[in-house]
């Protein structure tokens, strides 16, 4: 497992791979603690869109952090 410092740099790089909308949705929820409704209002989109941005952001970060390991691609 990577140490905390490595984790910090990794998450930074992982976030940088996201689209603006995805990154904003994730950070607003995770860092700022906004509700889905608040993020939806801020981004001017329906809640469903916020949730799909969130889902894509998390999936992308996961696959980035999993890196060279076996990529469990979930086609759903």
């Amino acid at each position, binding site marked *: 497992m990577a140490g905390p410092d490595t*984790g910090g740099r990794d*998450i930074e790089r992982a976030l*940088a791979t996201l689209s603006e909308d995805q990154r904003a949705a994730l950070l607003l929820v*995770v*860092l700022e603690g906004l509700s889905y409704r608040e993020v939806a209002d801020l981004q001017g989109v329906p809640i469903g869109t916020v949730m799909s941005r969130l889902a894509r952001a*998390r999936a992308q970060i996961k696959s980035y952090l999993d890196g060279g390991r076996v990529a469990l691609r979930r086609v759903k």
Partner: protein
Amino acid sequence: VKEVKEGMNSRRVPISEDELHAFVDGELPADRRADVEAWLAGHPEDAARVSAWRTQAELIQRRYGGIAGEPVAPRFEIDRLTRATRPRWRLAVAAACLALLVGGAAGWFGRGAWEGVPAVRAVAAEAIEAHKLYVVEVRHPVEVPADASHLMAWLSKRVGHELRAPDLLELGLRLIGGRLLPGAKGAAAFFMYEGGSGERFTLYCARATAPDTALRYRVSGQVAAFYWIEGEFGYVMTGPADRDRLQKVVERAYEQLEKSPPAKSSSSRG
């Protein structure tokens, strides 16, 4: 090992991916949480995803949340249950600093949808911090007592706006006095009120560049605040975390502040 009828439960109430996210983000209704927990017990792949998302959140908070000077990592489980008590304004300050840190992210931060939000939250954060700092002062809670004739003139001059401290006597709150504080856009005025049992409320007024906002509510530990921006001024009313009482105080203050001359008239003719 928990006694959960996994098989039954998971077959009867399948959990969607959206619900897993909602579970992680504390957005799921309480009555559905148990279903998700039971589901996760029987679906290790989903449990692993949930765990990965939480790790991501921890990494993000550890990487960026530290800006506000608060360790945020361990707050997970408890705060998820008592979401309202989460000191969100602190995270807000961290988020406001994010634009500077997340390389290449300046674009999303500067978007229209963002305008005002970090600003008003930052103002609220300042005010709540000041509240916590000064309400515990017994001997020097204010710089200038309410009975000093120059209190309003002095603060108004420094803030650059004709200020009026709302009269809250009807609610049993007496104005003790005020002080000058540094604000994001110059000086901020800070008024303190005291009630019969020694409880204190503070009103923070500072110039804000953001557009008007609705009334927002934040809890931070033992105190809570309502804050809003109107007429280029940000106001934060902070007091003990009793929402009903605080709301009454805010309503009383708000209707009086509304009647004061608009802030825009800095070179006013009244």
